[in-house]
């Protein structure tokens, strides 16, 4: 139970960063933390106490195994996050070229 609570605390750290930071780069890092929290949640759901890796080999007794599917999901989700982060960093570079700052309170031309 305590592990799930810590995982939820990590998710809250990510959300806090996205909501309160004023620097583009810090916002991108907070989004990364948010993603890691959810990936950790998936891995925690897959974990079973006193179990082994999920490979059936010849001559090996069948024991309780961890769930392999969320691990595959986490790999996919990490790749997607890589793409998102690259996209966001590229946009941040372009924004710095146009506005000359990383401060989101000064990047405010769209109103109304």
């Amino acid at each position, binding site marked *: 139970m305590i592990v799930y609570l810590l995982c939820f605390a990590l*998710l809250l750290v990510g*959300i806090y960063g*996205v909501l309160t930071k004023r620097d*583009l780069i810090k*916002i991108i890092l907070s*989004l990364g933390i*948010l*993603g890691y929290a*959810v990936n950790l*949640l*998936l891995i925690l*759901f897959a974990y079973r106490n006193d179990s082994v890796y999920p490979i059936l080999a010849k001559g090996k007794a069948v024991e309780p195994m961890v*769930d392999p*599917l*969320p691990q595959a*999901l986490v790999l*996919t*989700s990490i790749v*997607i996050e890589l*793409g*998102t982060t690259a*996209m*966001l960093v590229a*946009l*941040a570079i*372009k*924004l710095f070229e*146009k*506005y000359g700052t990383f401060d989101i309170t000064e*990047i405010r*031309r*769209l109103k*109304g």
Partner: protein
Amino acid sequence: MILPYYIIIPLLAAFLITLIAGKKDNWAVILSVISVTAMLILSVYSFITMNKQVVTYEMSAWPIPYGIVLVQDALTSFVLVMVSIISFTSLIFSVQYIRHLSMDWRYYALFMLLVTGMNGVIATGDLFNLFVFMEIALFSAFALVAYGSRAEEFEASFKYAVMGSVSSTLILAGIAVLYSATSNLNMAKIAELIPAVDSKVIFWVGALFIAGFGLKAAAMPFHAWLPDAHSSAPAPISSMLSGVLIKALGIYVLIRIFYNVFNAPEIFMKIFLVLGTISIIIGVFLAIGQWDMKRLLAYHSISQIGYILLGMGIATPLGILGAVFHLFNHAIFKSLLFYNAGSVEMALGTRDLRKMGNLMKILPTTSQTSLIASLSISGIPPFNGFFSKLIIIIAALQAGLPWYAIFAIVGSLLTLASFMKVQRYGFKGDTVVEAVENKIGWRMNSAMITLAVLCIVTSLMIVPGIKEVTLDPVVKVITDKTEYIQLVLGGMHGN
């Protein structure tokens, strides 16, 4: 077996464009037009020939609980037809509009990726696969919003990217909780196991999904990105985003998950009602004060999405009929209005309503079609918007929800007022415009005329003989709720 081709055709086109396109964009245009035309033909053909049967396609022939499965029922076919029509006209409109910005093949590759993502989300029957396709569509949307390379476009794209990433993360958390509760990712299997799951878990997952997909659909508390992103994008992309993307990624998934998987829990139907009503009223009030034409149209997207959510929340067959019908109609008239805004911007170089005027003489086609679309969105008979709004209001009254009906009527009247403003200042204004900067070609005009004709033709879908073959199968899929389980698990296998 045409189900996997909805994903294969546009994806193949996107890769081939990047491979063979040189400095010019001729090949890119030819390839994308061919693929979108093929999709239009396939989707219309499958919608006509598929009467009440469900086709499933198992990828790599893995049996259903283990592998990824594609499902095609009436709702899927209906939304696919909508996506195909709008992407076809958007592409025809794009050819001239994008060439006046730049001769760039990258636009077409991104456009085809956007179509791939949406088709994948609509056709898939597996929750995690839905998430992956959603991300594909969102990447291309972020890039296309920033396509104009001006400072405001990058700003809007960054805002959209941050909010979209947060909502995707929430959706992934919801999928994780649902997987831990049912040990399945296939939607039909999850629906089968849902009755045994604790109702608190359902509530928790539903809250995560409403936050995540509600942001994609731009319902009221999650709407902040939409006016910036949709008004900053190039006009054909604005029409793709407002007309199709927020429905394919938001509304369609909400319908599929909350009706077919969760069996329409009462509390979420109430949430849909309240969110829909708030969206109608606030969206219209924010739209009335706008002077930038595309921003005004973007705020109206929020309001019209509210109507669809209201129809879904009423949850009677009549309300769902109105919601499905309004989904299709909104795609058509909102895309047409964005084309009008794009052609006015191309001709005059401005989007400010106060700087337009006497466009009736200079841009006759644009003015006539925009008049049709404005009447349609305001709910004036005989155009299609009138019938769908009327059905939603009648359904609200029949379900004993008179206040919601009153709010819907008020929203409709305010919509009419704001479009009177567009017509009065924009197209019949006092400002004298001497000459146009760029001429509007036959491709842009033909795209606009096609959708203007469809505005009148689709109102025939409510005529009793035609309603049975077009809208009724779709409504039946939604109102049968968990019939979806038997249909998918015992459906026709297309391998």
